[in-house]
């Protein structure tokens, strides 16, 4: 940690940074208002899949960058799971050197265009910004700036492709192409490893592709990042399920010396209440996969999707918000969130909730389904809800929802999306009997280098955390890459 502090200090001490700091009085910086993200009109956007946040202009970005005080003790960095050198990149924005700003992001973050869009900054960097913690003011819009820089670089047509060490010929396999796998692949290929990413689906990207919708994260942005990894030499092998198409043992025999499992938390949970298997009731994974990965809402694609007039989405996470907003875009007259606590406890990002409200999503908070009813064809048409009230705080610190006796009532719904969490994907563990698992089905690893009980297998992302965020998954991928590097260096020395 010491040398990191030293490095930050050195960077901060550079002449250009000193000059910039002096160019404007702190008071003046403090007097500026935070930039507002340009948003697509809520009425128009709810009828299309175009991205809601349109980005900010160069001028807006530079003005926002001026708000950053370039603190001697940048607490924001501690709030970032991958420790982006935040003041440095922001000061490059102020200096209008966007290419170097982009390079700064990429020192530690392989997917800035993605993170700038989907990270819960309000809980991370921006929550640790000097403005927030010391001044009790609105923080610098770090997330908007990150996105601005990444988009600027992509649109400039001159994307910086990080340098790659000469090949050392050592084969490493990455299992799963979600953010953890992509981050691990990027770091390992830079170190000279010969990296193959195995993906079960027909397209790489994991949740970024099949889960998060176009209006929040266009697939094109993910594809550009994957293309860059390919340019750096990463090989992507789709339609390949490790544990089925070939086992880790098979891959070892083919020369792979280390493995990173970033296989995600793919298994959707259901509530196991009566009637839940009726037609028209599905997991958010199924709903979003049909729409996002399979393009089911387009006539010229073969996959079908059900359109609902009265759509109820059960849950309060990002996945629930994405599902309900998708339903709205597919023509729902009523698109409703059914959540058993209140807005305050909702795990979804604040921005998503705000956008959902703007788009006319109804929030039926303190409600929980207890039964579903179907028509003669088996299609859901009604659900029974029970009202809840908040009781004592539970283990997570949130107040526990308690059912109110006798409060049951019926609500019409012809499409129900169940979004009550996921469990870790069991494919890898099932094929490795010796692997140490937690009782929640996650792979147990040491938290520094992400090494599992099988020395050549490292793991990270949702398969270890049981459901987290893009940035935490990426951080894991990077730590695991460092762990794999150390492991292989030691092993090949012997």
């Amino acid at each position, binding site marked *: 940690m010491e040398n990191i502090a030293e490095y930050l200090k050195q960077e901060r001490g550079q002449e250009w940074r000193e000059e910039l700091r002096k160019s404007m009085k702190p008071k003046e910086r403090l007097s500026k208002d935070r930039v507002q993200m340009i948003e697509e009109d809520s009425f128009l956007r709810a009828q299309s899949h175009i991205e809601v946040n349109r980005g900010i202009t160069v001028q807006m970005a530079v003005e926002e960058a001026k708000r950053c005080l370039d603190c001697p003790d940048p607490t924001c960095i501690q709030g970032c799971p991958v420790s982006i050198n935040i003041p440095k990149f922001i000061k490059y924005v102020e200096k209008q050197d966007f290419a170097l700003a982009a390079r700064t992001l990429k020192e530690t973050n392989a997917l800035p265009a993605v993170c700038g869009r989907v990270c819960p900054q309000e809980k991370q960097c921006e929550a640790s910004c000097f403005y927030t913690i010391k001044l009790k003011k609105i923080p610098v819009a770090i997330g908007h700036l990150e996105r601005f820089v990444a988009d600027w670089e992509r649109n400039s047509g001159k994307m910086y492709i990080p340098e790659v060490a000469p090949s050392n010929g050592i084969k490493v396999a990455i299992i799963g192409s979600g953010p953890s796998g992509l981050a691990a692949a990027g770091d390992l290929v830079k170190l000279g490893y010969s990296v193959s990413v195995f993906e079960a689906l027909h397209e790489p990207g994991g949740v970024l592709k099949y889960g998060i919708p176009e209006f929040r994260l266009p697939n094109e942005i993910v594809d550009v990042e994957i293309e860059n990894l390919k340019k750096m030499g990463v090989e992507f092998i789709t339609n390949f399920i490790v544990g089925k198409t070939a086992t880790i043992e098979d891959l070892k025999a083919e020369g792979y010396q280390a493995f990173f499992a970033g296989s995600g938390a793919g298994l959707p949970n259901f509530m196991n209440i009566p009637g839940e298997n009726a037609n028209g009731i599905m997991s958010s994974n199924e709903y979003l*996969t049909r729409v996002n990965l399979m393009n089911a809402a387009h006539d010229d694609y073969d996959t079908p999707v059900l359109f609902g007039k009265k759509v109820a989405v059960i849950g309060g996470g990002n996945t629930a918000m994405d599902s309900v907003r998708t339903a709205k875009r597919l023509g729902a007259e009523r698109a409703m969130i059914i959540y058993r606590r209140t807005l305050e406890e909702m795990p979804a990002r604040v921005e998503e909730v705000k956008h959902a409200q703007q788009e006319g999503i109804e929030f039926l908070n303190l409600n929980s389904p207890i039964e579903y009813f179907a028509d003669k064809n088996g299609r859901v048409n009604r659900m029974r809800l029970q009202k809840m009230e908040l009781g004592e705080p539970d283990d997570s610190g949130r107040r526990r929802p308690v059912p109110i006796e006798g409060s049951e009532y019926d609500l019409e719904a012809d499409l129900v999306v169940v979004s009550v969490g996921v469990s870790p994907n069991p494919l890898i563990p099932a094929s490795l009997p010796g692997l140490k698992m937690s009782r929640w089905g996650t792979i147990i690893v040491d938290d520094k280098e992400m090494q599992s009980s099988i020395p050549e297998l490292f793991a990270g992302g949702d398969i270890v955390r049981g459901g987290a965020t893009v940035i935490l998954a990426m951080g894991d991928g990077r730590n695991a890459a460092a762990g794999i590097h150390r492991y292989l260096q030691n092993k090949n020395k012997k």
Partner: protein
Amino acid sequence: MNKIISVDKLSENVVRLEIEAPRIAKKRKAGHFVIVKLGLKGERIPLTISSSNPEKGTITLIIQKVGVTSHKISILKAGDEITDVVGPLGQATHVEKIGTVLCAGGGVGTAPLLPIVEAMKKAGNRVITVLAARNKELIILEKEIREYSDEVIIMTDDGSYGKQGLVTQGMEEIIQREKVDKSIIIGPAIMMKFGSMLTKKYNIPTEASLNAIMVDGTGMCGACRVSVGGVTKFVCVDGPEFNAHDVNFDELLMRLGGFKEEEYKAYQSYLEGLKKETV
């Protein structure tokens, strides 16, 4: 991309494709299936692996024309390519020597049944197979099934081949004649339902291979869920074979109709399109 090596027509609506898939050919066991996607805009559909040739690196799939995707696949030719093939998926059939095994295949269900018949025979069982279909034309793979069965009984609804009657009549005849230790039934959900009611009456342990609607085939979406013994299971990872006596076939039947309207419309407009092309 997986290249098609050969295509042959088994009946008016059923074709057999041999395709290149070396890794799957090496790993697959009886009971496994693959998910196939045709073209960039295609949907993902499950197909049982009917047989494989690990030396040649090929697997065979049998497809009945029932909707857009199966139709598109059924008109492919040798040398064409299938965009995506992933597998082998699902749990392999539990194969052991138990004595006499009564296998029943309805319609295109004979395709997934074939590898099981083969495996059961090779494990040293006495295998009796009942094949059933609406008419003679729809009885497929008879030669291959005979190769691995001690006895084959054919039942057609219209009596155009074998005996006239339903699959359950053929099964019951055997059950009354000799001791059956296990039964395996594969075919349309309605046929499996009645077949399983029959074997339940005689207390014969029975497996059915369920043809649920799927998307990913890896346990990620839950589209394929069924109730088995009152518990929700995912066919793609927990199955496709289950204890038939515990399966809620009525729910399966209902769920199979989940996209009926959408599928019907899509197929009609696809067929319209085909007509226009040929005019």
